[in-house]
């Protein structure tokens, strides 16, 4: 039976593979984000190497690539993934392990790649792509006064109205603790230490529960990145957590009356992985090196406010300001890594979530179900 189902899967993938053979296929999240990748480094790389690069959309997670591998017909070469998935996929042998300094070019000043990236990679299979932020924003027309800190997000007395928060526990617990008075410490270490204990988890859950059941507050849970700015603009909520690039696009791109607050932000990373045994592994490897070069990563920041992983890319951007595609907006201050934005922040810890995601997820759902 297993063989037959494998055969079926293989057949269905074989049909889809015929359309994408002899090209590097990159799976990413779609929307404005994929657009920035395609224009920023996808197209230039394709031109330089003379290889076609196809972009396909997916909605995250390893289920699809696992299914492709089980069927024995892998159709993706490169995937844009969360840190947690690079760890799981690397341990399970789905992705290629890198020899980092050999596989990726050094910065223009000669700094080896491993030194040029902001931090070390979570696994041997990952190469950094962007840094983004889980911060919050408000609609300036609907809020009286100016929220400045993460505490204000939970302060319904001073700023009454509903809040939009992410649908699952990820980053919500951290934000709740930061707002409850825990100083994040270096990279958020203190927050995660608190979350290792039952007491800390309950403290965070209670904080969220209090906000959601507050008659002056209340919660809307968002699931897609486009929702937070939308909910703010329609007036459905007064404040929303979200991804900084989406807020930036709404504010600078579309002129919405939205303002971001960087206090207590969670810095998170996005990575590329190279699929082991992908349809065009050799070319994919070359393309990946090109895409994650200093110039390449700086290129995508022209189109979206996510920070390139390489320090040297920020240098390129600063020299080229105004870097945004409209030709008049300076991009560096909008980066989640800018010094003014990282006064109080935590780094989202993939290892913590890889370990505790399931259990905290269950607790979170149970808490939500009781709202």
């Amino acid at each position, binding site marked *: *039976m*297993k063989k*037959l*189902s494998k055969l*079926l899967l293989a057949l269905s993938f074989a049909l889809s593979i015929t359309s994408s053979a002899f090209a590097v296929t990159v799976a990413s999240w779609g929307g404005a984000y994929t657009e920035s990748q395609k224009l920023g480094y996808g197209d230039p790389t394709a031109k330089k190497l003379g290889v076609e690069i196809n972009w396909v959309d997916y*909605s*995250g*997670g*390893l*289920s699809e690539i*696992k299914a492709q591998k089980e069927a024995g017909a892998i159709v993706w070469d490169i995937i844009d993934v969360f840190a947690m998935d690079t760890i*799981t996929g*690397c*341990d*399970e*042998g789905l992705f290629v392990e890198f020899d980092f300094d050999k596989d990726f070019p050094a910065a223009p000043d000669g700094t080896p790649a491993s030194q040029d990236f902001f931090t070390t990679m979570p696994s041997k299979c990952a190469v950094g792509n962007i840094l983004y932020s889980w911060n919050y924003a408000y609609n300036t027309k609907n809020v009286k006064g100016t929220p400045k800190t993460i505490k204000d997000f939970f302060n319904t007395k001073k700023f009454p109205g*509903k809040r939009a928060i992410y649908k699952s526990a990820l980053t919500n617990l951290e934000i709740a603790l930061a707002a409850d008075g825990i100083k994040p410490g270096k990279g958020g270490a203190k927050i995660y230490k608190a979350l290792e204990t039952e007491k800390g988890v309950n403290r965070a859950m209670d904080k969220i529960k209090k906000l*959601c059941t507050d008659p002056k507050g*209340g*919660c*809307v*849970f968002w*699931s897609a990145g486009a929702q937070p700015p939308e909910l703010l603009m*329609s*007036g*459905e909520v007064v404040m929303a957590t979200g991804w900084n690039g989406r807020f930036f696009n709404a504010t600078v791109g579309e002129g919405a009356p939205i303002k971001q607050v960087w206090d207590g932000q969670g810095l998170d990373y996005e990575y590329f992985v190279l699929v082991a045994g992908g349809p065009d592994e050799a070319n994919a490897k070359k393309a990946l090196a090109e895409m994650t070069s200093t110039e390449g990563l700086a290129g995508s920041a022209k189109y979206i406010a996510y920070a390139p992983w390489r320090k040297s890319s920020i240098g390129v951007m600063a020299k080229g300001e105004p870097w945004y595609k409209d030709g008049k907006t300076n991009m560096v201050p909008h980066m989640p890594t800018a010094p003014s934005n990282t006064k109080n922040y935590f780094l989202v810890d993939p*290892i913590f979530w*890889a*370990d*505790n*995601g*399931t*259990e*905290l*997820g*269950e*607790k979170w*759902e*149970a*808490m*939500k*179900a*009781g*709202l």
Partner: protein
Amino acid sequence: MSSKSQKILTTDGIPLEESLKKAERKNKIKAFLLVAPLLLFLIITYVFPIGDMLFRSVDDRMVTNMLPKTFKAMEEWDGKELPEEEVFAAFYLDYKKLVEEKTFGKLATQLNFEKNGFKSILKKLKRKMKKFEEGNYKEQIMGVHKRWANVEYWRALKRRTPSYSYSKYLKGVDMYENEDGKIVQVPEDRRVHKILWVRTIEVAFFVTVLCFLMAYPIAHLLATLPMKYSNLLMICVLLPFWTSLLVRTASWMILLQQQGIVNDFFVWVGLVTDDNRPEMMYNKTGTYVAMTQILLPFMVLPLYSVMKTISPSLMRAGKSLGGTPFVAFWKVYFPLTIPGIGAGCLLVFILAIGYYITPALVGGASGTLISNQIAYHMKSTLDWSFASAMGLMLLTGVLAIYWIYNKLVGVDNIKLG
């Protein structure tokens, strides 16, 4: 006379009986060949995937095969205190082999489903193991991380001993088998599946009731109006039916949100004040409204097709025999529509119980249903065996409802058109 001589022969001398049988067999083969593609289709798209799912949900051979020595050493262990040195030593040898084969990642993922926190201590063990000295593995392993000295983790490991287990089904109803072999509930703050099952059934039930209450008069109107009006009405029923599910869900979001059109209208006519707009979205109300509207055609169409066949003279006869309009309706018309009601309710209920997108978009906190949880385990946690188990539980539920319906009303009575 012997019976042989009674046989009637065909012109070419073969007994008629045999010749007939032959012809019949040919027809049977032909008939079978005609339905063979359908049969094959059913086997490939239903029987195999469901069989595969069933197998996945109980199959735990992978972990059993990964740690053969450990499980053997654990046979004697009663699960009360930390296991003895021999268990640690066996585990060390098993795990060392997995690290060499580079398959330890799969073990880590599986064990993390059983008990959170396994992933990182296994990885830490992998790093530290290289410097291990021979002998006294218990102390060395426990020195890697304090969780290795926690008996809970060893109990979790022991739970994965059998090659086939029904533990995923227990997890689906928030239970587990503890070290004494008793089936107990998980801690209260982690009981989420039961809530979701109850909520799923509740939502499906009320959506079915709402659909029925709305669809009955509509279908009646459709069946009794003159052709030119009923056609127009029919288009009104079918048009949303042909529109994409996502589009319809999104339009409800625009209509129902607090700053939405419906609320704006309420404020405009003075029904509510501007700062006191009712919440009609991101809660159960939103789920009910959107799902009822989306599933309505599935109720209207079977009802309509049945009502169309009921002769109007029956009602007239009922009334002329002395019944009030209500009695005539209740005793004559209504029983005749039961086949349509059965078909419609069954359809709507079964569709509603597996609904996914709409509750996820408009349901808010109280809107997640069991199918959302299945998707979560398929996509995020990658616990496919658990997702399979819950999928099968849902399927069993649907079959049970079908069975009850068959006992109460009879499936033969269903009429779709």
